[in-house]
């Protein structure tokens, strides 16, 4: 089940007496201490602070009064927030699965000893380096029916060609997915490529000797070996989904209407544009609760219950 099931069983303590075990672990504990402090002060502290503010009536500056669940009842009566929640599910599913598939294919194909590997790798990665404020404008122009693809194809002599997803309320969210794939699949490729390069050469030799077809090697041997990398990539992509903001602002500003609104934009708008910290933090709290309820069982199973990697 876990990334470690392939691994040999636990080792270290068997040889050493208990007292020495504790001493040898001390440096590890020390190494983790700064992280522990940061987690306690910054992460847990800020989470609690956020949750606390969501029960107040704070506007421009935080204040610590108490209004109970008033912000939450407002939030769930707000159709923009509800649309945002729906959009993030659509986007999250398509974006994560799309990036993983495209990223894996790119990594595998690049790993075929091709000419110009460095060039291809950079080409697939470059979107990740660019500020979305402006690349979003380029996408917006390209997807605009009057300027981009639709106009070009029509000018080529297909007057009935229509591609107006960007300005169509039902389809606009998918244009965000397209631009998201463009932006994010390069990084997935890099992570999986690093994983592929970590695969033991002997494995390939053995498979070759046994005459196993390449695709089967990938499907039944390599893919399971890459599992930790896939998990890493998925988590990274998922954090991107939850924080999705720039892309939407650059391409649609949540429009047409509220068709492409997303939760992080709701939070941002209310925290900074609309001087409504309380409602913004309430939305952030709901996001947090949603993330915890999706992740907690997984994190618990995978990391907490199994102390260390090999327990």
């Amino acid at each position, binding site marked *: 089940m876990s990334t470690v099931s392939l*691994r*040999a069983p636990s080792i270290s303590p068997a040889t050493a007496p208990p007292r020495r075990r504790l001493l040898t*672990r001390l*440096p*590890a504990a020390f190494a*983790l201490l*700064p*992280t522990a402090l*940061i*987690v306690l002060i910054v992460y*847990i502290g*800020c989470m609690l602070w*956020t949750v606390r503010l969501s029960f107040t009536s704070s506007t421009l500056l935080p204040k610590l009064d108490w209004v109970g669940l008033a912000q939450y009842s407002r939030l769930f009566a707000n159709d923009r927030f509800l649309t945002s929640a729906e959009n993030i599910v659509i986007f999250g599913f398509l974006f994560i699965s799309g990036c993983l598939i495209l990223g894996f294919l790119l990594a595998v*194909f690049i790993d*075929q*000893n*091709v000419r110009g590997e460095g060039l291809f*790798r*950079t080409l697939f*990665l*470059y979107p*990740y*380096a*660019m*500020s979305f404020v*402006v*690349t979003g*404008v*380029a996408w917006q122009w*390209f997807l605009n029916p009057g300027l*981009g693809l639709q106009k070009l194809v029509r000018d080529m002599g297909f007057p009935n060609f229509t591609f107006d997803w960007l300005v169509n309320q039902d389809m606009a969210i998918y244009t965000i997915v397209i631009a998201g794939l*463009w932006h994010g699949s390069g990084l997935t490729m*890099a*992570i999986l*490529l690093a*994983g592929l*390069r*970590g*695969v*033991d*050469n002997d494995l*390939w*030799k053995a498979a*070759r000797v046994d005459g196993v*077809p*390449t695709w089967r090697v990938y499907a039944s041997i390599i893919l399971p070996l890459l599992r*930790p990398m896939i998990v*890493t990539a998925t988590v990274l992509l998922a954090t991107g989904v939850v*924080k999705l*903001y720039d892309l939407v602002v650059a391409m649609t500003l949540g429009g047409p209407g509220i068709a492409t609104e997303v939760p992080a934009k709701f939070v*941002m708008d209310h925290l900074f544009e609309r001087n409504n910290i309380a409602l913004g933090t309430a939305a952030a709290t709901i996001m*947090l609760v949603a*993330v915890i309820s999706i*992740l907690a069982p997984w*994190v618990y199973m995978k*990391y*907490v219950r*199994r102390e*260390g*990697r090999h327990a």
Partner: protein
Amino acid sequence: MSDVIPQGRRPRHLTPARIGVYAFLITAALFFLLPLWIMVVTSLKPMDEIRLGNIIAWPQALTFEAWTKAWSSACTGLECNGISVGFWNSVRILIPSVICSIIVGAVNGYALSFWRVKGANILFGVLLLGAFIPYQVFLYPLVRIFSMTGVYNSLLCIVIVHVIFGLPTMTLLFRNYYASLPIELFKAARIDGGGFWTIFFRVMLPMSTPMLVVATILQVTGIWNDFIFGLTFAGRENLPMTVQLNNIVHSTQGERAYNVDMAATMLAALVPLVVYFVSGRWFVRGIAAGAVKG
């Protein structure tokens, strides 16, 4: 099919399978290049031509003016010195932040995946959850914390902030990478009497090259492109280049010079792009395999 196995020398002849490989890569490259094409041609046009709206067309009046302007004379407020102003600030923020956050992440990942420290996994769990909170939520309390401790608005402050927010992803990256390495390796090192740091520096770090590359890509990009933290924590003297970039491309009521915007964006991305390209040679194969032998 054996020719698709990525070993040995590059095949001399193009087989159908290899043509397929290149066809896929080139098609994908075209999709990735599309917006870049629009940006490049736009950056080479004068504004009059851009207003006409032929976004794909090659410029009729080719000019590099926008590029020089973006670098050295576009207005970003009172000063009109382009984005070059913040370049060295960005470098000064980038180098310590990237190095520190990667080291911290690698040590954490190593401690988490090979050593049993009580409660460490709960720590990791919370850290992972923290990665999902929008950064903006942290701004206000962090400003308060930093101004209490007196490091607010300094280079040190911005480096600390980058290390803090790099923690979840860096730890995750290295923890999972080390989890995929054979445990026998660690066992052997322990039997040889290696301590925590010895094993880390002698055994683990040398084997981490591919992940170090990925971590560098992630952090260089993230920190170089960061805008909101630099703006909030770096102080006026240390403002990174993204602040100038943002000032050029993102004005609510001001008129807009798209050619300069596009050129500025591409210029601002040069450092990460160079890192991507150069880092390639460290994307080496089979280090793990070689080290495990015996």
